[in-house]
């Protein structure tokens, strides 16, 4: 069902604000995984500002929904969202990457409130999410686990062990999202280690597959609802995204996987985000 105009506007504005903050922190911190942080943003905004049952003032709340960023290098984007929601004082994000800071490029669940697992080594988070979801089910809990994977991450063998396990253990209280931005570090996923036909692979492993545009909030929200409603098999959303989304000169360019920004590029990036919002 289409989002009403006010809701759509709210989510879009939030996503733009998050992207601006990602750019600013990438500037102050000296370098971050900006490309993937920008591609995942709309998906994370939908989860955190519409779907997830959380209380930022009580990060340890027993019945909260869980979110695992299995593509942990998107941590800069995750930290911005958590800071915006009030899990911690946003000002502390100025310390990102600095010596002794709680925030490094890959977030530490023991140091950053709201982070449910310390990820960064690709191919771990998905298994952890399955464990959490099974844990909830065994203990009769109603909360849901959300997990986001990078498409490059899907090249990792452990992901497919998890992909076998979730349908096998009928883990339907978990929603899996793939940020399909078509790039890993060294190039396009299809050039480096081809993933296609990706939908058929997931289906063959026993998943309900929902393909959607990862920058269209109507599609994202419909997709998450559909995934959450799947009771016979676990559902995965393959979200078509653009690496570097919103900053024109970063879009679809592998060179922006990880980068630092100087004054000029930061301003150009902010300018581009502003233009795109019109």
């Amino acid at each position, binding site marked *: 069902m289409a989002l009403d105009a006010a809701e759509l506007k709210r989510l879009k504005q939030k996503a733009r604000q998050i992207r601006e903050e990602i750019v600013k922190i990438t500037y102050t911190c000296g370098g971050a995984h900006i490309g993937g942080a920008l591609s995942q943003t709309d998906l994370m905004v939908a989860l955190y500002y519409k779907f997830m049952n959380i209380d930022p003032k009580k990060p340890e709340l027993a019945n909260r929904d869980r979110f695992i960023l299995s593509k942990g290098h998107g941590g800069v984007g995750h930290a911005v969202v958590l800071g915006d929601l009030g899990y911690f004082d946003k000002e502390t994000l100025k310390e990102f990457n*600095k010596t002794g800071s709680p925030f490094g490029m890959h977030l530490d669940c023991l140091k950053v409130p709201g982070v449910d697992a310390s990820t960064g080594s690709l191919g771990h988070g998905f298994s952890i999410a399955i464990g959490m979801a099974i844990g909830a089910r065994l203990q009769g809990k109603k909360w849901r686990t959300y997990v986001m994977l990078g498409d490059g991450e899907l090249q990792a063998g452990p992901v497919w062990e998890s992909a076998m396990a979730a349908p096998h253990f009928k883990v339907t209280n978990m929603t899996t999202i793939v940020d399909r931005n078509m790039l890993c*570090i060294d190039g396009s996923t299809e050039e480096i280690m081809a993933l296609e036909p990706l939908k058929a692979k997931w289906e063959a492993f026993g998943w309900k597959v929902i393909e959607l545009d990862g920058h269209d909030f109507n599609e994202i929200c419909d997709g998450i609802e559909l995934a959450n409603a799947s009771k016979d098999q676990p559902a995965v959303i393959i979200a078509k995204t653009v690496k570097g989304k919103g900053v024109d000169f970063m879009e679809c360019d592998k060179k922006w996987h990880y980068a630092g920004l100087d004054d000029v590029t930061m301003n150009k990036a902010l300018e581009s985000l502003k233009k795109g919002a019109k």
Partner: protein
Amino acid sequence: MAKGITWSIEDADHMTQAEIYGEVLTQIAKKNKKIIAMTADLAGSTKIGRFQKDFPERFFNVGIAETNMMGIASGLAATGLIPVISTFAAFAALRCAEWVRTDLCYQKRNVKIIATHSGTSFGQAGTTHHCTEDFGVMRAMAGITIIAPADAYETAVAMSQAIDMDGPVYIRIGRSFEPPLHKSIDSFDFQIGKAIQLHDGTDLTVIATGRTVNGALEAAEIAAGQGLSVRVLDLHTIKPLDTEAILKAVMETRRIITVEDHNVYCGMGSAVADVIASSGKGCVFKKLGLQDVFSIVGYPDDLLHYYKMDADGIVEAIQQVMKMDFEQDEDWEDEV
């Protein structure tokens, strides 16, 4: 010119350890057609991509699939080729530990691993991307050679000698630029398994490895200003260990400090401790490095300081160790 060098490098003073091994490997591969290079979506970050430019047909990027890479390398080596593979230390040593043991070491495969971003050298990335356990993991594997070069020059020679020898080799380097320790490629005698004595001394020996060697040398100079005579050993090979140089340090200085960008449990210091204990001699001993903790986030140089692995930390340790007593043995004079 050091033995067996058939390649040349310019501007090594300004190269990172990763840049230089990429360059040297590519040059060696011009003559040695058996060399195959591999990475796991880190061609650019590890600099093995340099090889890809010249030899695309002998280069394999397996995507983000490190264990698969180890297994394929084992198979390639079984056919007589020499795979040289590069990824971050955390993935090479920890994620792939069992592959390295069973597919490379147990089967005696001639595979060379270049583990980059080791220790805390990728400081801002945080613990998932640090690797302060690899000496321990790798040392426990029978038949592997472990080298931690201190600068770009040593990395170049280590790369070259690793290719010349048979069997699995693990070369551990950092992420970014390390100040050159040596003046040129032929100003030092690098032999796998032989420590390099950088500074002689009689009061105490500092044994350092990898990116901590520069600080050790600096500390020895500071200590000299305080009237102390400090020997510095660059223990670039962790396995096989230069027991002779360590025993000599025990006998001649009776005080040893080890420094490594690694957990002090199971690291280079523990290897040195084995030798000291076996010697039966009294020796004051202190291990610098991460004291069984997970590393914090920070700039790489700050972390060296934070964990007392830099010149300041080493000088402080020297002062402590000089205040401690060792038990004199009766035949002390005979041993020297």
